[in-house]
């Protein structure tokens, strides 16, 4: 029904734009990762593997990457532990208040990420809200200083930020669980626990995978929460990249790390897509 001209007219502009502003920059990042920086701080366009050799040789990069993945894994786990029961409650038990409660999960997303991270900083600081509250009710005498500038603060803040993102796909999956299957399970004598684990949970796995991927991938690449709340022990891999593109001025090495992150992220997306397909019953 649509002519060739129509199809070209709608496909060509976005294709061209995406090639220039998405594909080309990724390819450029790939190229940069094989270049180097001269002693006079200019980028030398000679192809070599020095950056990758340095990455493999220096343990600081591996340690930081592992720490970032560990932080991201905890954020993912906590977001699922908070998001899944919430989504389940809304989908199956909230009745008429469902829509309102759903909106209430979304609303925090409209407060900027930066501002929410900042708010946690004002809560967790040594003269912050929590510490002064604890002293006010005489639970502690001195401020607890492990709250801020620690991986704990980063995990807490990122969990706060990504719980709604994890909730959304899980809720969507639970809403798509055919209610007659649940009834059939009850009618055939299954206990509610059996119904949950044998019927509802398996059908919600695609949502769980999507939500978990969101939380893991987005926290893995975060650099603002660690800068704001992490302190020296909360440094993540993106912070190294930021400094390489800033004061340390080694774009090629930074590009190599970014490319590594890109590869990790894209392979995770690939695997989560496979998992979702495998568990999707529709």
């Amino acid at each position, binding site marked *: 029904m*649509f002519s060739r001209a129509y199809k070209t007219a709608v*496909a060509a502009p*976005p*294709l061209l*734009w*995406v090639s220039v*502003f*998405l594909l080309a920059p990724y390819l*450029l*990042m790939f190229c*940069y990762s094989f270049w180097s920086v001269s002693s006079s701080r200019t980028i030398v366009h000679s192809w070599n593997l020095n950056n990758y050799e340095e990455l493999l040789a220096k343990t600081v990069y591996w340690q930081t990457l592992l720490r970032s993945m560990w932080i991201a894994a905890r954020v993912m786990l906590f977001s699922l532990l*908070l998001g899944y*029961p*919430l989504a389940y*409650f809304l989908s*199956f*038990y909230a*009745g008429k208040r469902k*829509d309102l*409660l759903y*909106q*209430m999960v979304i609303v*925090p997303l*409209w*407060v*900027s990420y*930066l501002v*929410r991270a*900042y*708010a946690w*900083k*004002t*809560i967790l600081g040594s*003269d912050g*809200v929590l510490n002064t*509250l604890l002293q006010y009710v005489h639970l502690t005498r001195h401020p607890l200083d492990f709250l801020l500038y620690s991986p704990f603060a980063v995990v807490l803040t990122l969990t*706060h930020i990504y*719980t*709604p993102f994890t909730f*959304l*796909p899980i809720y*969507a999956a639970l809403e798509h669980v055919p*209610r007659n299957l*649940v009834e059939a399970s*009850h009618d055939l004598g299954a206990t*509610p626990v059996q119904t949950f684990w044998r019927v509802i949970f398996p059908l919600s796995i695609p949502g769980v*995978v*999507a939500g978990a991927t969101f939380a893991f991938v*987005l926290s893995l690449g975060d650099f*603002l929460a660690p800068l704001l709340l992490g302190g020296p022990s909360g440094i993540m891999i*993106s912070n190294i*990249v*930021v400094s390489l*593109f800033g004061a340390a001025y080694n*774009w090629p090495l*930074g*590009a190599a790390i*970014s490319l590594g992150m890109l590869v990790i*992220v894209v392979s995770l*997306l690939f695997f989560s897509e496979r998992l979702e397909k495998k568990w999707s019953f529709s």
Partner: protein
Amino acid sequence: MSEGATNLPRSRWLLVHAGAVFAFLYLPIAVLILYSFNGQGVGGFPPRNLTLDWYRILFADEPIWDAVLNSLQVAFAAMVIALALGVPAALALDRAQFPGKALFRRLVLLPLILPGIITGLSLLMLFNVTGTKLSLMTIVLGHGTALISVATTEVFAGLQKLDRRQEEASLDLGATYWQTFWRITVPNLKLSIIGAALLIFTLSMDEIAVSFFLIGRDNTLPLEIWGRLRRGITPEINAVSTIIFVFSLVTIVFWYRLRVRSEGGADVGMELLETSEGSAK
């Protein structure tokens, strides 16, 4: 809903959990708003000497309002770019077959799930190699490109519900593609397009990870706030965040009304949901 399920004792446990999660989600927002009125500054319990001073200081603070203005301009321009490319991209994904279509779909959606640092840095390298000076314009290009993903998923979802016969009838009756597009396709996609526009606008207003690398001389609001945070904490930031939060809230309520009126109780926030689903697929 399965009837009778509401009486299970397990629902009480779930209710407590839900209450705790909501408390966790709203605690920082409550603290943020409360302390914007606190005379003693941020932190310190209990809050005392409630005052509007921080709002007074804020209204006299030129750099913040310059940054707000910059952010509004950037968000508007990014919205125009993202829609101008995202709508055709959705049409192409829905209707055209071309080599590399699968790759194209993935590329368009990637910035939605990719950490902002990668999008930001790869564009920084492009601007560096082409000798483009960093300015608000480079941020616009960054936001516009990253948010095509939002426009595409929203409009693509809208196209799935579109009644094809209307377009067929229009073409059969001799209208050109151009006329059909403006008189049939766009009016039918109105809600998806407005929803996408609002979402893109808000996401751009809040965006910091991409802007962080593409910033020139002029700050957007999040970057201005970031700069101040590095110097120290002031309740002015609470005040400006509170104002923006209230504005966003008004926007959602407005959007909610619009949707309910035209669709009779539509599932609100579905746009964001579809976006989150679309990107993960």
